[in-house]
């Protein structure tokens, strides 16, 4: 559905040339939810704008929905854009138009007759759950409702691809989840390909199938979300993964435990997929003469399966603890020794 080949994008600035995107090759499949994560300035805003021709690459080709966005111009580009729509961090609604008029805007651009426009707008208002708010102005809506209008507007011309530019970054956590659920629903129901950029690992974990991690204009890591969570390679990826697993709360708990129980070994276990459902801990206690106390645990659902971390304190004789750790490795649970008190 989307191919980026040898993409480089340079900007001329007062301080000389700036390379926003460097040598990127990327392929995104039809029907996929693909996430691009990076800190601000990593080049992800430029990346997503290359996909609908708002930015043109300095070198390389961008093909989306069988259209070469890097080279088409004029009417052809404008027509192609109707099938690759976009939603924004700050919603970018027209304040001078009501909800229904905002949603009708892309239909006006596409030259859809008035009667059909009205029917389509009503359909979309129901789809995004904005029933009863058709005549409201954006200033009368909450952030979440505004983004729903943005999504309805983006879907108006039945696009093949939906680009999300930090679509949930201006929303509170609860609204973020509601909007993400809506995106998944749209992806499943309409078979829409979704590309999103974000700086929140939570968004990637919750809805993406695959992820690419960007740093300084380059893709430093990519893969299935679960696999990236399980075995992050690049330093920056580890940092993003720890947004979910190593919350401040966890760190405090570990520090507390280390102080309170200076014996034994603190071990972080990482469970992926089916392993999350196995009674690993009870086996451990039954088979080896060790005591296990649970310090902290959490399970995150990703699109390709569950991902869990458990921090336990293992107490026992040196040999028994070593045996227990060996056992954990044989059941393909990743083990990471955090602190060794002995």
């Amino acid at each position: 559905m989307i191919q980026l080949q040898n993409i480089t994008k340079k900007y001329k600035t007062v301080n000389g040339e700036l390379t926003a995107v460097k040598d990127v090759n990327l392929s995104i499949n039809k029907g996929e939810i693909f996430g691009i994560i990076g800190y601000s300035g990593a080049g992800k805003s430029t990346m997503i704008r290359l996909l609908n021709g708002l930015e043109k690459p300095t070198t390389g080709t961008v093909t989306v929905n069988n259209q070469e966005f890097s080279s088409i111009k004029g009417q052809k580009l404008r027509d192609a854009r109707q099938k690759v729509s976009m939603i924004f961090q700050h919603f970018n609604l027209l304040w001078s138009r009501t909800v229904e008029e905002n949603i009708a805007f892309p239909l006006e651009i596409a030259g859809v007759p008035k009667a059909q426009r009205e029917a389509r707008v009503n359909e979309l208002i129901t789809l995004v759950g904005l029933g009863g708010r058709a005549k409201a102005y954006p200033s009368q809506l909450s952030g979440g409702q505004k983004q729903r209008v943005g999504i309805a507007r983006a879907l108006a011309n039945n696009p093949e691809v939906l680009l999300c530019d930090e679509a949930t970054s201006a929303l509170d956590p609860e609204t973020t989840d509601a909007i993400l659920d809506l995106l998944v629903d749209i992806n499943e129901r309409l078979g829409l390909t979704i590309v999103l950029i974000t700086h929140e690992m939570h968004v990637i974990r919750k809805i993406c199938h695959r992820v690419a991690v960007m740093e300084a204009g380059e893709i430093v890591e990519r893969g299935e979300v679960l696999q990236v969570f399980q075995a992050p390679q690049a330093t920056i990826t580890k940092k993003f993964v720890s947004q979910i697993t190593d919350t401040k709360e966890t760190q405090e708990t570990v520090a507390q435990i280390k102080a309170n129980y200076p014996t034994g070994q603190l071990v972080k276990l990482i469970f992926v997929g089916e392993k999350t459902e196995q009674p690993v801990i009870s086996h451990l206690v039954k088979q080896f003469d060790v005591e296990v106390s649970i310090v902290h645990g959490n399970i995150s659902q990703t699109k390709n399966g569950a991902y869990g971390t458990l921090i336990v304190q293992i107490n026992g004789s040196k040999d028994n603890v070593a045996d227990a750790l060996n056992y954990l490795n044989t059941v393909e649970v990743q083990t990471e020794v955090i602190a060794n008190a002995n």
Partner: protein
Amino acid sequence: MLTSLFPNVDWEKMWEATYQTLYMTTISTVITFILGLAIGIVLFLTSPTQLWANKIVNFLTNSIVNIFRSIPFIVLIILLIPFTKFLLGTIRGANAALPALIIGAAPFYARMVLIALREIDKGVIEAARSMGAKTSTIIWKVLIPESLPALISGITVTAVALVGYTAMAGIIGAGGLGNSAFLDGFQRNHGDVTLMATILILVVVFIIQWIGDMITAKTDKR
């Protein structure tokens, strides 16, 4: 009562003068709105990073606007006498004041249009582009509606300034309330005529301001 307070006022002449002032103000405001809007949009769209980014056109338009904005109106009228004569065949009467009024006010309004357009969220224009909108669609359906309150309050300020300009134009023979105040009031030493002309000008200004404020408030849905 009125006759005793304003013994020298010829009411018929006064209404005639008021009508002329309203006529000059209305016509010049309408044309200034259209011309200033067009120039303002060109200024905006040709500025760097905008849709028609073009240094040369932007520089030239900007220069013309600045030159005409800097010429004092009374001097502009005199400078434009040959042009008006060529255009209308006369330099007397309300119509003869129109070229100077429009050329004096349009650059002033174009500047206000530019300021109004710059206030529009860049993201909204980007969103329209991402939907495949043509530049003409962006002008008619994004730029103008999204800046409408500022465009209206700008034209209100301009219309009030134009009332002042018509008074100046009146002094060189365009008619209107300025003409009455100067010729019938000042030169014949009839203070009451000048006062009445002033009152009527104030009433016109207040009405314009009131209408402008009302429309601005009505169009602002933010």
